[in-house]
């Protein structure tokens, strides 16, 4: 197999320096994003735009690990992206546990990684 030309990956480590939002390239026209606001994840401010999910806003600003598993203590992030796998569980203060890939970000949300004792948000149901 020919060498798969290694590329240097971005090294953002949750410090929100990198932004993965598409700015209009190729045949994907730029999304004219709505107003920006902030929420916090583990106390750090995260920038989001109206309509973005919590998971997309976090990933866009370089946060990949959303929680730690209860047995192995392993980090987990977005995996299936469509609400099937429940890997991306986070806890929104005063709301409960939600799937970051489905739940819209909102101004002022205080979000922390999911922990077992947190209560599920009403209706963070499933799939149909």
């Amino acid at each position: 197999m020919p060498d798969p030309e290694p590329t240097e990956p971005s090294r953002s480590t949750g410090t929100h320096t990198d932004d993965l939002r598409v700015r209009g390239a190729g045949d994907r026209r730029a999304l004219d994003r709505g107003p920006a606001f902030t929420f916090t994840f583990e106390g750090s401010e995260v920038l989001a735009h109206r309509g973005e999910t919590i998971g997309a806003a976090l990933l866009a600003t370089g946060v990949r690990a959303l929680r730690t598993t209860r047995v192995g203590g392993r980090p987990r992030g977005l995996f299936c992206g469509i609400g099937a796998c429940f890997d991306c569980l986070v806890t929104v203060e005063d709301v409960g546990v939600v799937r970051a890939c489905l739940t819209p970000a909102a101004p002022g949300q205080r979000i922390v990684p999911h922990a077992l004792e947190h209560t599920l948000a009403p209706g963070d149901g499933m799939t149909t």
Partner: protein
Amino acid sequence: MADGSVTRAPLVVLGAGPAGVAAASAAASVGVPVLVLDQAERPGGQLHRREALGLGAARPHGLDASGARFAREVTTLAALPDVRIASGVRVWAARTGTAGLALATDDATLGTVVSEALVLATGAHERTVPFPGWDLPGVLTVGGAQALLKGQGVLPGRAVVVAGAGPLLLPVAAALAASGAGLVAVTDAAARTRWIAGGLPALPVPKLVEGARYTARLARHGIVVRSRTAAIAAHGDGRVEEVVLARLDDDWRPIAGSERTCSADALATSHGFAPDLAVALAFGCRVTGGVVPAVAVDADQATDVRGVWAAGEVCGIAGGEVGAHEGTIAGLAAAAALGASVDRRRLERARRLRRRDEPFVAALSRVLEVPTAASTWAGPDTVVCRCEEVTRGEVDAAISGRGAGDLRSIKLTTRCGMGYCQGRICAPNVAALLEAATGAPPSDAGALSRRPVLTPVELGRLLR
């Protein structure tokens, strides 16, 4: 299931992808009032996903021809007086009662939806073969990367490996390249010749042209798709930093010495699809198929449960066009059962279209087959059930050491499939391990996904 309000409808269609919308359109066309329930914020399913409404995109993504056709169909459907499309609604329990078929929803106004007839068009999710590091943040499914890009306009990373198998691989890689993601490598686990071996004449020419177009688009970005190659490990401190690629033999066993490690900050990987059976199993519908089961239906798309029809990917992976044909049949058959006057010739025409799809569906299922030996990518310590963190070693031990001979025994011994995702992600992989160990697919297909409550739901709701 008493949750305050009850909504009654003669016909409920669950899912608003190509199959669900076709079913609703067909039933509405013969005068049956339809309530469509869908979890997304607007119709489309996974195939016709659009940018999130709230983003307020001034210049939304261009729709391809089939997406535009679908959008027109939805507009026509939604304008009919007796049709209601309820978006953003999730179903958390389903059962047959004396009053009819009941779906408990998370929508306060709808409450429990009770109908005489139901078309299940719940679609499918992706299947990913486990390998060491597949649970690291930064590893996501190919469809997950697509949903992020199409729905949110966000790239999975700056240096992305796209590795897997199945029809999503090339379009998603091409879209990522066009959107400015740096593609480190694009690899297909299957051999290029599989399309011929799988029955090339059965595959419609447009599908082949489509594949060639994506390959050409990737080539314009300087990317050559490597076939018979897979991502078999991901490494990194808390997130993906390196991906190990390896050449595969015909059975998808990695060829020793062919491994190459490349730097990457994201890996998009999946190996086909698995029907979403949760609601069908809750109603007790019979499923068939060993490693990747699907709802069993007759020529009218009727399941073995009275009043329940099924259409689209939930009946087997066949794509949106076949799903739409099945939806039309299901919608007309359900309408006829409800007493509507259905032109038999119209139903027969719809059935004929579906029969004509059959060689394509059969070829596709051969092409999409994941060889059992792929289950050796996982090491003994690799998590197979991501929710309950059950390793391949534990599953193997349950099978060989403790004699667990079916999925149910594996579930009870290891907790595989007992977590949040209800076996959606692990079921095909546990079934493949069982098949690898015993030489036969599981006798109890669907057992990992069978549950009374379909989704994590707060206790108060159950007690109400």
